[in-house]
């Protein structure tokens, strides 16, 4: 099954919560952190997600509902000036 990669960006409110852990327990998805950085006010993680497509989408909707920003994990925008 191909792994899907997303970038989650957290604000100050979510930085302290074990969101990735919770995601792996509440949904049938396997999470793996590929890259991450967190400091006092914001953080991001590039997360590899394996599982059923619908289940992954439910997990991401759950994260959005928690106030997390979800982007497809690319190296940033491909549009240039």
């Amino acid at each position, binding site marked *: 099954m191909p792994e899907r*990669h997303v970038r989650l*960006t957290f*604000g100050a409110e979510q930085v302290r919560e074990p969101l990735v852990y919770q995601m792996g327990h509440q949904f049938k998805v396997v999470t793996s952190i*590929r*890259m991450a*950085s*967190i*400091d*006092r*006010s*914001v*953080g*991001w993680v*590039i997360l590899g997600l394996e599982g059923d497509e619908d289940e992954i989408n439910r997990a991401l909707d759950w994260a959005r509902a928690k106030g997390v*920003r979800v*982007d*497809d*994990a*690319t*190296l*940033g*925008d*491909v*549009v*240039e*000036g």
Partner: protein
Amino acid sequence: MSSFNRALKCRECGREYAIAPIFSCEFCFGPLEVAYDYDAIREAATRDIIESGPNTLWRYAPFLPCDPAYKVDLGTGFTPLLRADRLAKAIGLDTLWIKNDTVNPTWSFKDRVVSVAIAKAREFGFDAIACASTGNLANSVAAHAAGAGMECFVFIPDDLERGKVVGSAIYDPHLVTVRGSYDDVNRLCTELSMQFNWAFVNINVRPYYAEGSRSLGYEIAEQLGWRTPDHIVAPMASGSMFTKIWKGIKEFHHVGLIDEPHTRMSGAQATGCSPISTAFANDTLNFIPQKPNTIAKSLAIGNPADGYYALKQMEETGGGAEMATDEEIVAGIKLLAETEGIFAETAGGVTIACLKRLVASGFIKRGEETVAIISGGGLKTIEAVADEVTEPLHIQPTVNSFTEALSARRGAPVSV
């Protein structure tokens, strides 16, 4: 001569890959960057050799990650570094220089990055080149593809300035305007890049492409007489150019061409698209992506690929970041034009407006010798200032009509 690029190296985990059209680390997804054989470069690029080279960025060929045999030379680079005394005085600096990159073949610094990208694409054997752009990159890719006789696909959002649309169409690429936002163009082009075997300049040849901006750093150092300024202010979209200027300066030191640099590097963004400057203001290295809404469309990248590295570099060099509103951007364009005779596009307005803020706040001290990067020409974004310039005097073809109109404007009679 071929090229002294030795490998691609992951910026995060340090793994190395053979030179190929790839851009991200298979292991950690970090971005790949070109690594060089600096011993070979040191031999091939002495001050004498560089000074006797062509008046283009190809004078730094040993530093470029492509075989110059494949170049498409439209005359890019080695643009003027101009002393800007009138502007310096207006904003409160003793010594200010303008790096005038509006005079490149397609009127922006993008010709530097595309010069390298197209040479590398040809070296890799691609016969089509593509990009997703808000204008300047599109213009440059289309022009260089025309010069190379390569098939070219250019994707732009459908709300771009006329100058930028025609400025690509004239070279007759496959120009595609996408009905949708920047985000939609992004998503589409990421998908396309996986399905078509094209050199996508800012995707699969991005590691090489980005290196072209180092030439700005080389030129500044050489043009100042093989030394570096106290401060450089540059516009940031992805943050790539901003980080590569500094990489170039450090490389010049590494190969012994200049003394150790102590340049503070500061970045400029528009308030309506300021993920990097906002992160700097919040004292964090992690930016939050934004949805752009600014007249500075060339800088409208909401999720900047090199944002993190730009912020690290501010920390490393003691530099900073500022942001400017649309009104300040227009005022910046006008101030540069009226004091120095240089007509910049909106990105230049952002740079001048942010420079002004950095000086006003005391972040840049009066005595710091500063270089401002003016990265694109004003005829491309004429809409931004068309309604802000002084109306011409409209007269009949008589001396009387002229003196009357001039008197009215001056509020005092004009004697003949």
